[in-house]
């Protein structure tokens, strides 16, 4: 640091290519990064603390704000952890809708990753195309929940409501056009010599290092480790879907790109299968202690009125104990550690945020490399600061 050869460069927290409020302090020797120190916490909103004072269902909207590019995945992690502690399983239709929507969420999240990653490296047009497709998924979000982004559609015990009429056709229309669009992006990038120069052999991380650093998701799979929670510990019925887990070889920026592109294809496949599995049925567990009764019933049934009142005044209790439930979010293993003391509010909720863990690998990827590569590597990590800082 004191050497006159090196220079300290502050990057962020307001820098377009840090994807939010990430601040890096880079020590440079000429154009080579000697040391990289990350500073996070600028977006710390105390979500875990906030959850402790909310009832279980009330906490769901807070989780939307963690990885705001994949709100439904966050909902799912919390909801599944609570359901595990309660010892309940939601009806098949609810499971299928959850799979359908979280796979669309994966595509949506990967589209923002691709658009911004390409923009960082200088390919402007990809960004505009990706946001066009993302818009179509946001419309689907809006159709089910009334919200484009902070949808909070999943509930402990099922869903906020059933799918609206015409939803399946809208998904079909999207699924029909998407593969061609994806092929368009690949035509723009995959064999593009400029793209390859900026990504091949850049930000390489070894398999052992990635495991020791706890990396998960596409970043880990790009190193050739086939860890995908959907396959290793299926939830919401993932064991009934056929899909592949795309793997990389070298663990560089280009491999992470290829893995995510292939994952979008697989998500497209799973979404199609989920549509076929969609059969009529209830979307909530038949437990009046968890799910409010239908409104018209309140005028006729005293019991329904009591349940309604109890649920909104007090909520439901979860047996005392602790669980850890992980899902495969677009960014990697999103775990929810829940401690219940038997009351209607969680005693402690902690989220194992994949971006938080993956970002820790950044110095290993950029030290000894050119400063221009830092931008490419951050893009390839696909971090969301809302989730890192929580």
């Amino acid at each position, binding site marked *: 640091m004191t050497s006159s050869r090196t220079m300290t460069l502050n990057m962020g927290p307001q820098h377009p290519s840090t994807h939010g409020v990430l601040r890096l302090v880079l020590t440079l020797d000429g154009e080579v990064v000697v040391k990289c120190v990350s500073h*996070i*916490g600028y977006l*710390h909103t*105390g979500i*875990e*603390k*906030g959850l*402790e*004072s909310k009832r279980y269902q009330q906490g769901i909207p807070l989780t939307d704000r963690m990885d705001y590019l994949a709100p439904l995945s966050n909902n799912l992690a919390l909801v599944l952890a609570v359901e*595990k*502690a309660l*010892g309940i399983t939601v009806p098949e239709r609810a499971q299928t809708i959850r799979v359908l929507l979280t796979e669309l969420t994966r595509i949506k999240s990967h589209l923002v990753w691709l658009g911004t990653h390409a923009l960082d490296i200088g390919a402007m047009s990809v960004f505009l195309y990706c946001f066009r497709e993302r818009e179509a998924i946001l419309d689907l979000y809006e159709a089910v929940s009334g919200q484009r982004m902070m949808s909070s559609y999943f509930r402990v015990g099922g869903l906020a409501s059933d799918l609206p009429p015409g939803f399946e056709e809208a998904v079909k229309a999207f699924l029909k056009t998407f593969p061609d669009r994806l092929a368009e992006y690949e035509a723009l990038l995959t064999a593009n010599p400029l793209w390859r120069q900026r990504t091949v052999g850049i930000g390489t991380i070894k398999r052992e*290092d990635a*495991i*020791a*650093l*706890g990396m998960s998701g596409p970043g880990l799979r790009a190193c050739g*480790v086939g*860890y995908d929670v959907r396959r*290793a*510990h299926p939830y919401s019925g993932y064991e009934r879907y056929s899909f592949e887990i795309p793997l990389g070889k070298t663990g560089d920026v280009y491999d992470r790109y290829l893995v995510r592109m292939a994952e979008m294809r697989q998500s497209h496949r799973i979404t199609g299968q989920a549509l076929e599995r969609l059969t009529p049925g209830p979307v909530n567990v038949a437990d009046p202690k968890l799910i409010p009764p239908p409104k018209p019933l309140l005028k006729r049934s005293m019991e329904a009125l009591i349940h309604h009142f109890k649920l909104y005044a007090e909520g439901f*209790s979860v*047996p*005392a*104990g*602790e*669980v*850890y439930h*992980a899902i495969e979010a677009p960014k990697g*293993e999103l*775990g929810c*550690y829940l*401690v219940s*003391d*038997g*009351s209607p509010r969680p*005693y*402690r909720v*902690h989220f*194992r945020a994949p971006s*938080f*863990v993956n970002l*820790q690998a950044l110095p290993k990827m950029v030290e000894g490399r050119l400063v221009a590569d830092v931008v490419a590597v951050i893009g390839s990590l696909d971090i969301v600061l809302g989730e890192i*800082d*929580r």
Partner: protein
Amino acid sequence: MSDSETRTDSREEAQAESLVLQRLREQFGEALREVKVWRNETTVVLSRQDLVRACRFLRDDQDLAFDFLSDVTGVDRLKLPQASPRFEVVYNLYSLQHRRRLRLKIRVDEGEAVPTVTGVWETANWHEREVYDLFGVPFEGHPDLRRILMPDDWEGHPLRKDYPVEASPRWWEEEPA
């Protein structure tokens, strides 16, 4: 819900006498303070002194191979029926090879340091910093123990149960426990 709500399901307990626990019992016998199985998840409470040795064993033993540390976090037990020792540090381990999870726990009181496991799994670095930042539990031997989410000059540790959730502490006191 009553406090006597049993945390261990006897039916599940039978399954829990799994390989992991067997090996741990062989190696650490007395050091296992408590073993709980709930919802098919195994939790082992260890004493501080044995933590790093146990972690190394769990990582390096071929039959166990817990090579992946998913998560480290803390719990402030101030408002739980058993409030002492006050803090719990929770390690969620995973074995990529065997697809198996295990939860380790250490209990410490205010001011007591927990040995770092950064030497076993590099990823523990930021997790331990987070626990230090939000709970005020120090980690002995940590290479870079600084606050991570809160500003460096912040006073207090926000995830402690006696830390107010909103600006006015009175609001917190009125909230039912």
